C-alpha cells in the first residue's frame, strides 16, 4: 500500500499529500485508541461500582432498622431497643428550610448584580468572594456561627444552624444563579425593555422565569450540600434528642400563644440533624445504636434523593409547558 502510493508521480500530487503517508503507524494509533477506550471505560465502571456499592450497602444495613417507629418516634434511652429518629428528620427539614430562607433571596439578588454588572468592583468582588467562600472548610464557618450567634444568644439553636448552613449554601446559589441569568438571551431582556418595562420588572417577570430551571437545580445542589453537613452543626445546632415539632406546636397552641411565638420557640431550640445523629450514634457503645446509624444514613440518602427527583420532575414539567410540548 505504501509502495503503490509512493510510485505516483510527484507532479500529480498536491503539496500536502506528499507529506501524508497513509497507514503509517496505523497499528500503533489503533491500539492506542483501543487501550485508551478500555482505560476510560474501566475507570467509569469503577466509579459506578463504588457508587452502587455505597448505596447498596447502606440499603442492606439500613433497611434492617427501618420501620414505622423508626420514622415516627424519638429515641429511647440508651441501651433500650426500639425508638426512632423523628427528631433528626424534623431537624434536618427545619435546618434546610431555614438555610434556604436565609440563602436563597440574598443569593438571587447578589447573582443579578454580579450578572448585570460583571466588570464593576463589586461584581468582581462578589465572584472572587463566592469562590473563596466555597473553599472555606465548613467547620470554620461553624466556629464563626458559634461566635456570632450562639455566644450572643447564650444557647445553641436551630436558628444558628440555619444561618451557618445558609453561609455554606450561598456560594453555590450565587454562582449557579449568575451563570443561568447570563444564559438568558439578551434579546428577551431587550424585548421587555422596548415595551417600556423598567429593568427590575424585566428581571422578575422575564429573566428570572426564563432562567428558573437552572436556578432551581442550583438550589438543589446547595440544599443537598447543606443537608449533609455535620461539623458546623456541632457548634451551632448541637443536637436534641427530645425535639419534636408536633409536641412543641401542641404545647404552644394549648397555652394560646400566637403562631409566630410558637415558631420562634421551635427555631430557638437546639436540634439534631440526620448527619449529626449518624455521627453520634456510631460512637455509642450500644450495638442497637450502631445499627440504627445505618438506618439514619439510609433515611438521609432517600430524603436527598427524593427531594432531587421531585424537583427534577417538576423542572422538566415546567420547561415542557413553557416550550408548549
Amino acid at each position: 500500500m505504501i509502495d503503490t502510493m509512493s510510485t505516483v508521480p510527484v507532479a500529480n500530487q498536491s503539496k500536502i499529500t506528499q507529506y501524508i503517508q497513509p497507514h503509517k503507524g496505523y497499528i500503533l494509533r489503533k491500539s492506542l485508541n483501543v487501550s485508551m477506550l478500555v482505560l476510560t471505560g474501566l475507570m467509569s465502571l469503577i466509579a459506578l461500582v463504588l457508587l452502587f456499592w455505597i448505596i447498596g450497602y447502606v440499603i442492606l444495613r439500613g433497611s434492617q432498622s427501618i420501620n414505622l417507629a423508626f420514622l415516627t418516634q424519638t429515641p429511647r434511652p440508651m441501651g433500650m431497643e426500639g425508638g426512632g429518629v423523628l427528631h433528626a428528620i424534623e431537624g434536618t427539614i427545619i435546618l434546610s428550610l431555614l438555610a434556604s430562607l436565609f440563602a436563597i433571596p440574598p443569593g438571587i439578588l447578589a447573582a443579578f448584580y454580579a450578572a448585570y454588572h460583571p466588570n464593576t468592583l463589586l461584581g468582581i468582588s462578589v465572584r472572587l468572594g463566592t469562590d473563596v467562600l466555597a473553599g472555606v472548610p465548613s467547620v470554620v464557618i461553624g466556629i464563626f456561627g458559634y461566635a456570632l450567634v450562639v455566644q450572643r444568644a447564650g444557647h445553641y439553636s436551630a436558628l444558628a444552624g440555619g444561618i451557618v448552613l445558609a453561609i455554606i449554601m450561598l456560594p453555590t446559589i450565587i454562582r449557579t444563579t449568575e451563570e443561568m441569568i447570563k444564559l438568558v438571551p439578551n434579546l428577551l431582556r431587550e424585548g421587555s425593555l422596548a415595551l417600556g418595562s423598567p429593568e427590575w420588572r424585566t428581571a422578575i417577570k422575564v429573566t428570572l422565569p426564563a432562567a428558573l430551571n437552572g436556578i432551581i437545580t442550583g438550589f438543589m445542589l446547595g440544599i443537598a450540600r447543606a443537608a449533609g453537613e455535620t461539623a458546623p452543626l456541632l457548634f451551632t445546632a448541637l443536637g436534641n434528642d427530645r425535639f419534636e415539632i408536633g409536641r412543641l406546636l401542641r404545647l404552644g397552641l394549648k397555652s394560646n400563644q400566637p403562631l409566630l411565638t410558637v415558631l420562634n420557640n421551635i427555631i430557638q431550640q437546639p436540634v439534631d440533624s440526620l448527619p449529626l445523629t449518624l455521627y453520634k450514634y456510631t460512637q455509642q457503645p450500644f450495638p442497637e445504636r450502631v445499627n440504627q446509624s445505618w438506618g439514619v444514613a439510609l433515611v438521609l440518602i432517600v430524603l436527598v434523593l427524593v427531594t432531587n427527583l421531585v424537583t427534577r420532575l417538576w423542572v422538566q414539567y415546567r420547561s415542557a409547558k413553557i416550550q408548549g410540548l
Partner: protein
Amino acid sequence: MNLTLVQTVNMNIRKNPFTTLGMTVVDESPVTLALQQSKMEVSNFTVYYNKFRALADISVMMPANKITAIIGPSGCGKSTLLRSLNRMNDLVPKFHIEGKINLDGQNIYAPGVDVVDVRRRVGMVFQRPNPFPMSIFDNVAYGPRLYGIYNRNVLSEIVERSLKQAALWDEVIDKLNQSGMALSGGQQQRLCIARALAVEPEVILMDEPASALDPISTLKIEELMQSLKEIITIVIVTHNMQQAARVSDFTAFMMINEQRAGTIVEFGPTTQIFINPAHKQTEDYVTGRFG
C-alpha cells in the same frame, strides 16, 4: 462623499422636497403632503460609543402613517439609528449623542423626558422573534399590565384587538393559554408585533423583522405592515432591497463615510431612490453593484 450636499438636501426636503433635487415642485402631491406631516424627525444627530463616532450628523424624517425603510450595507449604522429612535441605545455603556430626535415635535433626548413613555409610544420588533417564556395571552398582556391595567375583561379586549391587528387571532384563538414559544417562527414574530401593538404605540420600529423567516411568513409580515400603516408609522431596517422596494413609501440610504461613521447618503420617496436616485452610490447599491 459630498456631505454638505446631503445635508442641504435633508434640511430643505421638508419645505420643498424636490427643488434641491432638481425636480418639478408640485405642492399638492402626496409625497409633499406626507413630508409635511413628519411623525419623527432626526436632526443633526450624532452618536458616540465611548469615543467612536458611530453616526455622523444624521438628518432624516419619518412621515406619519407611512413606512420608511432604512437600507445600506452591513455596519453602516442602520440598527444604531433605529435603536436611537426609542432610546434602546441608552442601555449601551458609554453611549452619548449630539443633536436631537423629535417625536411629534418634542425632542425625546431632552432632559426630563421619561424613557418609559418614549418606549411606549415608539415600539420595537426585533430581528429574531423573542416571545417571553409565558402564555400567548400573557405575552400580549405584558405591556398593558406594565401600565397598570389588571382588569381581566379589559386585558382580554386589548389582547383580542392586538392579535387581530397582527393577523394572528384566527390562528391562536383556541390556544391563548399555551406558551408563546410553541408557535412557529412566523407566528412568533406576529405575536411580537401584537405584543408591541398592545400598548398602542404611535411608531413601530422593525429591525429586519423577516430575516429569520421563510418566504410565506415574510409575505404575511409585509402584508401586515401595509395594513398597520393605517394606524401607525413604521420604520423598518432591512438588508433585503426587494423588501424595501415592495413595502416602503420612503427610503433612507445609509453608508459609512471616510471616518467610518454612518451617514445618510440619500432620503426620498422609495420609487425615486430605486428608479431615479440622485447619487451614484445609491444607484450602485440598489442595483447590486456593491454592498
